[in-house]
């Protein structure tokens, strides 16, 4: 039994890319006359890190918004864990194990770091409100048990010193980290990161890269991230999808995408690196 467990747990070196977790099939999304996404198809496989790149306005954020139910595409389907879903609300996506961070930080500004992360854990907390009001027995135990889990995330992200600080007072780089912590608290199967390193200095970027790789390796979390820094993308991703004006230009391992002529002319040529 123990041996079996071990065989099934992907550890740092033997992280196996598995089956298709998410299939995006011929998605089109319009905003009035603007075609934000045009017939986009790609797959995300279990345990992989997929990077979505493309120039500004290419439709990257829109793609993530479609995946977690925030935007509803006019055409196409999304199949997650083998189930093709109809129109769904973001909280339903959350319940199915999809968590995300935002391009413009979307933290709960009036709450502390700890409370933000604890809020990210709410789907795992089941005590009825009147037990919470009594704050007694099972309700208190639940609160403490989840506090322990959140403290582990806090240790992992090295933000112990700002645990009780209202997040509105934190510098930008730390806010990004807290937002990642809040997403992790849900123990997601699929983690969507919208420009997790935007606006960071080199050191902060290195930290964030390390966190993303560790999350992927230690917890086996599948990650889809949007990033503009090509160095980072080439370093950490298993596969890259390139969008431009709502269309998909390329899809493949970093090296082949980098040398793809369409990509070079559309994206890499325009001042990057």
């Amino acid at each position, binding site marked *: 039994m123990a041996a079996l467990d071990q065989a099934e747990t992907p550890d740092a070196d033997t992280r196996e890319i598995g089956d298709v977790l998410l299939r995006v099939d011929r998605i089109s999304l319009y905003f009035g006359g603007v075609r934000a996404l045009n017939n986009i198809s790609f797959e995300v496989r279990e345990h992989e890190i997929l990077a979505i790149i493309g120039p500004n306005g290419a439709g990257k954020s829109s793609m993530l918004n479609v995946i977690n139910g925030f935007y509803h595409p006019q055409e196409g389907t999304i199949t997650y864990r083998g189930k093709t879903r109809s129109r769904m609300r973001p909280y339903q996506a959350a319940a199915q194990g999809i968590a995300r961070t935002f391009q413009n930080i979307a933290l709960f500004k*009036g*709450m502390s770091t700890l409370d933000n992360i604890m809020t990210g854990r709410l789907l795992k907390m089941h005590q009825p*409100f009147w037990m919470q*009001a009594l*704050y007694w027995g099972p309700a208190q135990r639940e609160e403490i048990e989840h506090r322990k889990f959140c403290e582990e995330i806090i240790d992992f992200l090295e933000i112990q010193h700002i645990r009780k600080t209202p997040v509105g007072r934190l510098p930008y780089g730390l806010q990004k980290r807290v937002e990642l912590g809040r997403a992790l608290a*849900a123990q997601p199967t699929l983690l969507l990161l919208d420009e997790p390193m935007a606006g960071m200095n080199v050191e902060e970027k290195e930290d964030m890269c390390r966190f993303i790789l560790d999350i992927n390796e230690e917890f086996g979390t599948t990650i889809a991230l949007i990033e503009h820094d090509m160095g980072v993308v080439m370093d950490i991703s298993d596969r890259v999808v390139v969008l431009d004006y709502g269309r998909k230009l390329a899809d493949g391992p970093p090296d082949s995408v980098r040398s793809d002529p369409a990509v070079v002319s559309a994206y890499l040529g325009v001042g990057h690196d």
Partner: protein
Amino acid sequence: MFYREAGQFKVSYAADQAIFPIRQDQIGMAMILAVAYVVMPVAGSEYWLETIMIPFLVFSLAAIGLNILTGYAGQLSLGTGAFMACGAFAAYKLTTAFPDLNIIVALLLSGVAAAAVGIVFGLPSLRIKGFYLAVATLAAQFFLIWLFAKVPWFTNYSASGVISAPPRAVVGELYVTGVHATPQARYLFCLTLVAVLALLAKNMVRSSIGRQWMAIRDMDIAAEIIGIRPLRTKLSAFAISSFYCGVAGALWAFFYTGTVEPGAFDINRSFQILYMIIIGGLGSILGAFLGAGFIVLLPIVLSRLPLMLGLPISTATISHIEVMVFGTLIVFFLIVEPHGLARLWRIFKEKLRLWPFPY
């Protein structure tokens, strides 16, 4: 004796999550309770208990209710008075229809009735926010008060429309409402009920449900994306807030004025409670008490002060001064310190923790 946590190490998350993690605060709270339970009933005059302490407690409870909705869940409401009226009339109907019903049960059921009404009037909150939601709750305010005044069933077909709360005992002959009830009994009953409900509110706001309210308040889109169901969460805030306001309204009618009349719960009452949470502190249970205390005491202090200083100021001038002081304070708190007196108290404690070595 410095105020600080040095030497008080928190060895468990349970200790760290306590309401009063610092020992000096625990002692302070124990002293407040001792004064409230022992000194007040023994030493407080009838006037002091009836016209200051009981309304203070009732206002505090209503302010907790509004603070849950507005301060924690971020849903601006101008219908507090109406929800209080729901509780008051529900308590009247319940106690007259079921004379044997225990007063505690009657009060709690009145809260439940107010909660049900609160849910109905909270439904628009899914679609509208801020100013527009406030206008919708204003509609509730005017409609409900009009309803209670117009439909004679609510007043048991009384000719005058003004009805007095029937006498009820907690146990045996221990009357807490009506003419037989001593001010001490009424005060202690209110104190206990308000203290228990305040504790429950504090527990909710530091638990998962409270974090959901604050998440909706701070950023509703992000809240939904981490799994919070917006309508359900907003309605829970409306329900629990209205429960508190409803019980407060019932206490007002049964323990403070002794009469049940819609006029006591008009729009001015709603604004008064709103001022309390703005001055006391949005999103703070302590702030509800501070704001209520401030608004109950300010007119009394203002009317006594000139006398004590020997200044001949007419009562008309005093009431003008009162309005001006309120106006100034509300503008001040809205602009400078939206977290009100409760925040000022926190800052004071943070300073005290470092005093006398601020670096």
